[in-house]
């Protein structure tokens, strides 16, 4: 399995540094089986996802067999065993968000968004999650497009970054 990490220009060294951080965080945990999930979470925190190298390190540190680590890691919906798609946002499709227009949000930016299960922010539906796992509530298609555009503009070095108002938070009130 080849890790499909975040590689660009000098990406390899960036990735190595992240792996070093992950290893250090894992090494700081007690060498016990009950530290398996915390170790995997440290790996994901440092690397953005749980890479093969990280799993091998967790295996060496906790002495849990690789097959068991995979069985456990794949059981948790929040652990990522593949590199996240850069810039991919998620639209919550829980019942409240669905009622409040999640489908329209997915349609507003189909190539930049994917659905995700309940994010437990139901009182502020509909909810989206950005690529850095920040939550935004009471979202509208227009506000979502504006945020995605602003993010894309900020990601490219030029032209000058347009500062947009935080329009995503000023949205219509929900129907009663």
């Amino acid at each position, binding site marked *: 399995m080849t890790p499909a990490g975040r590689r660009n220009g000098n990406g390899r060294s960036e990735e190595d540094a992240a792996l070093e951080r992950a290893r250090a965080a894992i090494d700081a945990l007690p060498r016990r089986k009950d530290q398996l*999930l915390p170790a995997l*979470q440290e790996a994901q925190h440092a690397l953005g996802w749980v890479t093969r190298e990280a799993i091998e390190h967790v295996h060496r540190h906790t002495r849990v067999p690789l097959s068991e680590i995979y069985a456990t890691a794949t*059981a948790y919906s929040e652990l990522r065993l593949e590199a996240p798609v850069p810039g991919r946002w998620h639209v919550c499709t829980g*019942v409240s968000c669905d*009622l409040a227009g999640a489908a329209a949000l997915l349609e507003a930016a189909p190539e930049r968004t994917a659905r995700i299960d309940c994010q437990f922010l139901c009182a502020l539906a509909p909810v989206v999650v950005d690529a850095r796992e920040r939550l935004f509530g009471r979202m509208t298609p227009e506000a979502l497009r504006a945020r995605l555009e602003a993010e894309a503009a900020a990601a490219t070095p030029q032209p000058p970054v347009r500062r947009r108002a935080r329009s995503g938070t000023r949205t219509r009130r929900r129907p009663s």
Partner: protein
Amino acid sequence: MTRFPPTAALHALREAHPAPARPRVLLHLGTCGEAVGAPSAREALREVLGARAPWVVEAACDGACWAAPAATVVREGHVHRHPRLDDGGGDAVAACLDACCDAEGYAGTGERGLTARMGRNDGSLGDALAQGAYAAIAHAITRPAAETIEAIERARLTGRGGGHFPVPTKWKLVAAHGGEKWLLVNAEEGEPGVFKDRHLIEGDPHRLIEGILLACHATGVTRAVVYINGQARNARAAFERALADARAAGIVDGDALGRRIEAAIEVRSGAGGYVCGEESVIMNSVEGERPVPRYKPPFATDHGLFRWPTIINNAETLCAVTTVFDETPPPTKLIPLSGAVPRPGLYEVPVDGATTWAGVLAMAGASPGRASAVLLGGPSGRFVPPAEFDRPLEMRALGAGGAVVLPRDADIAKITRDLAAYNMRESCGECTPCREGTARLVELLADPGANRARIDEVIEVMTEASLCQLGGLAGRPVASALAEFPVAFE
């Protein structure tokens, strides 16, 4: 607050950790505020307040999620929440501070009970103490352990995670064991539509610590693991900060309350998965095993975490334990309410009394006539039809409390299929009835008219034979929708 006068130890604690000066403006940030621009609202508010900007302090959501981003003015004799600061409102806050305001108190619930301090404090130990934190444990610790359990019995406290098992029964079973005993706090809260434990811990973490200490005092438990939903990062941070403060003050691992309570408290984060709310799954998760349910018996009270006798309580349950010495103790239930209501949020409502769904809807500003149903309990729940809106709420029937109000034009057949598909995705596969049943149910729902008899059969097998309640209750919303809203499937 407890009806007992503060003990000398509590008095000394309050002196050592004085309450912050008033007046002040509590800006409700937290997960809710942050998701709707409260940080920008803070800057705008500071600008309007000028020299009084330092009066603005950060608090979590107080349960009025609908009002976010909001700020609450607290000054002598006046507590007033100002909603939706993204629509302006800074001037009203300033006027309110100048005493040019005649509005009354809070909208909604939570002036007493277990949400009394939630989101109404600045996160400091002093503020929590001034609002009554640790008064229950300070009193309980001066009395025999059995008195705490008796008080819980008098309050008829049951498990608020959904099972509604009597708390004293569980505590006594564990207390009867010698040797090492554990407490597992279930704050995984992975049920879609539920956001109560996250609010409680984010907005009033000292209440959960106090509940843990009460359990340790009453049962001889000395080790506690608090298992918090992986996405509730603010809740975990708030809890860890409060725990560090309580340790530094000698409340945890010290004798500041007058007598030392042994309580080694450890925090763990979940990593998703509806099944992880099931108590035996959490035990496996904490031990580093694959997160699947265990066979019962043995029960956790005999053979739990790391094989030690273990109390497993929901976070809301332990928070409710802190109120059993109050003038008017529970039963109240936290109801996370969302969907088609003008004021969605977290409501603490008295149950087993006069409160009805119509009353809850009215609290949230909705007219009962405009709702087609209340989805109660999400993927494990049922559709409460309008015919039941006027019946009193029963604690046992509320599950974990998550309620989504469906508008008149809601597509109940689609919602039912979505819930069935969710259960299929979340089934851990450990037992056949759930692994196969959840998938069959999705297939059969393609044509519920023709498959009605087989749907009932599959649900019966899942209900009777599943290893845990994910499978055991997976057919419940389907059966409820078909029974109450047959027209929706035609």
